[in-house]
């Protein structure tokens, strides 16, 4: 484990940025933090969470897949990708770090999504432990420990120092290149911080939320539940929850005619949108209830069924904070899970 004084953290950023692109969460508007490419003078936010998750780095909201040149009856296909540059994301929270594993299982399973894979290979993740979890947090529900946030390097802030511990080879490479700035410190330097975090976790209002009622094989149990109707009643059908969610990965592929060619791009889509499953042959999810159900069944039942019991939610709480009508996965779990107890 190494450490650096928080006063010198800018020097650390500068050193990283010299080698590769560095992204840190920074305040961009009152109450809004976003990951931005670090430039000299940029401060890291004090906020717990960025308003969007970190999934953009690997699965951007829009992404150019392929270009076409059409002339007469002829079509030329152009792969528009350029060499992806190496980059470091600093200050990723444990929940977001965990979300990458969930996305990996989708995009890196056969057939591998090379767009995602490329970015993933070039990115180094430096996580940051959550000293002050929020009331909307429930990562512990899914077994995530914000005191040991994972990633390629884990970091803790404590008493004026930033502590860093490499977790993976990538992480070690990153830190070894920065050794001039970092001082070695005992491995247990952050134990107290971990304890403090875990202490707070117990006191969180959602600490007792468990996913035990859910998981693979529960489709029959919940699919036809009467409760979906009242749960989904106020849903606006907007995409806020899906777009701030670190694990939502649904996308749409669309063509854009630029006037001198056709650009096929992929963009985030939301299963909450009424046209999500609309096809020439009809729409199997006709009402908001069905669409709403899909989102939660996917995270709580289908995903674990196909992925060794891992849930498709990391408990980041963004949907809890951002939903315009305050309807979210917590409420769904509690309402549907009631029968279990």
């Amino acid at each position: 484990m190494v450490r650096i004084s928080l006063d010198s953290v800018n020097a650390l950023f500068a050193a990283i940025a010299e080698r590769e692109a560095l992204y840190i969460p920074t305040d961009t508007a009152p109450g809004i933090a976003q990951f931005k490419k670090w430039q000299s003078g940029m401060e890291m936010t004090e906020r717990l969470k960025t308003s969007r998750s970190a999934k953009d780095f690997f699965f951007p909201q829009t992404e150019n897949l392929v270009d076409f040149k059409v002339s007469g009856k002829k079509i030329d296909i152009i792969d528009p990708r350029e060499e992806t540059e190496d980059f470091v994301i600093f200050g990723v929270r444990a929940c977001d770090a965990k979300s990458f594993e969930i996305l990996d299982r989708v995009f890196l399973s056969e057939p591998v999504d090379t767009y995602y894979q490329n970015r993933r290979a070039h990115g180094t993740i430096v996580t940051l432990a959550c000293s002050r979890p929020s009331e909307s947090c429930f990562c512990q529900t899914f077994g995530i420990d914000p005191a040991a946030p994972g990633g390629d390097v884990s970091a803790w802030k404590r008493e004026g120092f930033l502590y860093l511990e490499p977790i993976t080879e990538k992480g070690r490479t990153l830190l070894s290149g920065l050794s001039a700035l970092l001082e070695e410190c005992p491995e247990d330097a952050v134990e107290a911080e971990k304890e403090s975090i875990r202490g707070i976790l117990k006191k969180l209002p959602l600490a007792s939320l468990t996913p035990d009622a859910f998981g693979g094989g529960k489709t029959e149990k919940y699919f036809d539940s009467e409760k979906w109707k009242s749960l989904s009643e106020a849903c606006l059908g907007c995409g806020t929850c899906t777009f701030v969610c670190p694990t939502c990965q649904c996308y749409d592929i669309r063509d854009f005619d630029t006037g001198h060619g056709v650009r096929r791009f992929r963009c985030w889509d939301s299963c909450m949108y009424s046209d999500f499953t609309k096809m020439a042959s009809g729409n199997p999810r006709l009402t908001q209830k069905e669409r709403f159900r899909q989102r939660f069944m996917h995270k709580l039942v289908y995903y674990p069924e196909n992925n060794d019991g891992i849930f498709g939610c990391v408990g980041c709480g963004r949907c809890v904070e951002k939903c315009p009508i305050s309807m979210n996965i917590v409420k769904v779990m509690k309402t549907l899970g009631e029968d279990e107890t």
Partner: protein
Amino acid sequence: MPISEFKPKIVAFCCNWCSYAGADLAGTNRLNYPADVKIIRVPCSCRVNPIFILRAFQRGADGVILCGCHPGDCHYTTGNYYTRRRMTLLFSMLDYLGIEKERTRVEWVSAAEGAKFAAVMQDFVKTVTELGENKRLEDRRCKKP
């Protein structure tokens, strides 16, 4: 790009009954105005949706001008009155977003005003040429590679 070389793209929506005929008259009278202006014929200025105007900017237009009958002379009686309100509000909104207000214009040109048509176009092209390329409302995807 130096101003002297810059040739703006101008889209002119012209009402069929007045301004389009005015443009024809300008042609008949051999009144020159810059070739940068390309006219789209619409039945009435009130057919022009703000979406068309934004679309033109998206696709690389540097200026959009809308020509209709003089208020009171609309072939459809009242169409240009709605145009007047819609465009005033739209232009004001574009200005509010910091988009150069000189890039958009509405002019009333009657079928008899060939000379006015040419003069208006000359003036508009000059104004837009001075402003230079439309950057604030362009779609970078539509740029020619």
